[in-house]
């Protein structure tokens, strides 16, 4: 499969990338592991690709104040193997290590996955559960969005056509916070048929987010409200997951029916909460 023709520009700075994007029908290329498959299937036929993979300021993992800051072109593998990530927010290393396979993790990037917003990708649930902020830069300047406001629907985000994601800022959770990412893998694509990310702070506040289940990743406030502050007993967990994914637009395809997805979501929410107990 060969993509349709496009012009290729490599940006040397964020400013240069934004100027190139302002020109019209252009797409941002980073690792290319969401975009290149879409180009090959001609689901997307941009006139220009703006390659941001070699802009040094967009890559890297650091702690800044009370936040873990990850540059948008940092690869899944770099995050999965990072000692800084393992120390401060291990669920990100756990989740990044569950993406695709070795080769995909070596090339695919955090920012690329978020911008693509595949409802079955792992990152959306991970950034939602960790209350991350997504930093965007465009011709209008910089803005910072809560992860929950960044995703706007099926393969849709708040990203404007002349904006790029520069970094993702994750609040470092209180000591003693427990977390887990429980994933039911679609065996061929290795996307999440269901991915459940859960975090519980020492205060008892519990957050639960899903990928793979609905038309976009989401925080399950029903489960969160039912279990936050309560002891994680089997009875309380069973009660909390009884209305999993309520009110969501559940996906249904030839891999899994709506009914089966909701069933799996309950099972994986239960496993996640048990793992936090």
């Amino acid at each position: 499969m060969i993509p349709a023709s496009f012009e290729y520009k490599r940006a040397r700075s964020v400013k240069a990338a934004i100027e190139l994007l302002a020109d019209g029908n252009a797409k941002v290329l980073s690792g290319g592991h969401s975009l290149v498959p879409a180009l090959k299937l001609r689901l997307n036929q941009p006139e220009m690709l703006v390659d941001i993979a070699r802009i040094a300021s967009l890559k890297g993992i650091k702690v800044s104040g009370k936040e873990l800051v990850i540059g948008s072109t940092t690869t899944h593998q770099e995050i999965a193997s990072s000692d800084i990530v393992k120390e401060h927010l291990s669920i990100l290393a756990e989740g990044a290590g569950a993406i695709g396979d070795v080769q995909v993790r070596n090339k695919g990037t955090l920012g690329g996955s978020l911008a693509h917003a595949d409802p079955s990708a792992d990152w959306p649930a991970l950034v939602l559960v960790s209350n991350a902020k997504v930093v965007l830069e465009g011709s209008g300047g910089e803005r910072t969005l809560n992860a929950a406001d960044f995703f706007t629907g099926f393969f849709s985000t708040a990203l404007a056509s002349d904006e790029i994601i520069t970094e993702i800022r994750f609040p470092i959770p209180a000591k003693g916070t427990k977390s887990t990412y429980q994933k039911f893998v679609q065996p061929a694509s290795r996307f999440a048929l269901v991915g459940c990310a859960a975090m519980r702070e020492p205060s008892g506040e519990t957050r639960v987010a899903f990928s793979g289940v609905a038309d976009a990743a989401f925080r399950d406030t029903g489960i969160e409200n039912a279990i936050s502050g309560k002891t994680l007993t089997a009875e309380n967990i069973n009660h909390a997951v009884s209305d999993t994914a309520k009110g969501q637009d559940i996906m249904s395809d030839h891999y899994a029916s709506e009914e089966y997805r909701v069933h799996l979501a309950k099972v994986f929410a239960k496993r996640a909460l048990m793992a936090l107990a």
Partner: protein
Amino acid sequence: MGVKINVTVNGKAYSHDVEPRTLLVHYLRDTLLLTGTHVGCDTSSCGACTIHVDGIAAKSCTMLAVQADDCEITTIEGMAKGSDMHPLQEGFKECHGLQCGFCTPGMIMSSADLLSKNPNPTEDEIRHALEGNFCRCTGYHNIVRAVQYAAEKMAVEV
């Protein structure tokens, strides 16, 4: 329309004008005539097209040739030293790690990536590292043995 790229493939420097939409695997196969790298699923699932880009395993059907500009690439053709097979190549031969052989170049490149990071992997780690490579003949057991053979041989050589 063409974009100039400079790449080093198996130690040899090349410079070509490529169309931006050219996939790296097609550049390797059709321009450099290195046909050991295979196109299997063409959707970044099967791993038959796995090569090393700057020392790490990547699926060349999901990279544009322009993304490899200024990179060092190793393909299956770069693994043997003259007539001496790489220990992984020898392992696949000795342990019957292939039947039709279509997936083998990708299997060997992924295995080499694993052994460079983890010279003494467990069976579990080998199977996990090869999740991105599909074999439709062997049932994987002999592939795992081939990687174990190579790991042992490479440990002795060092």
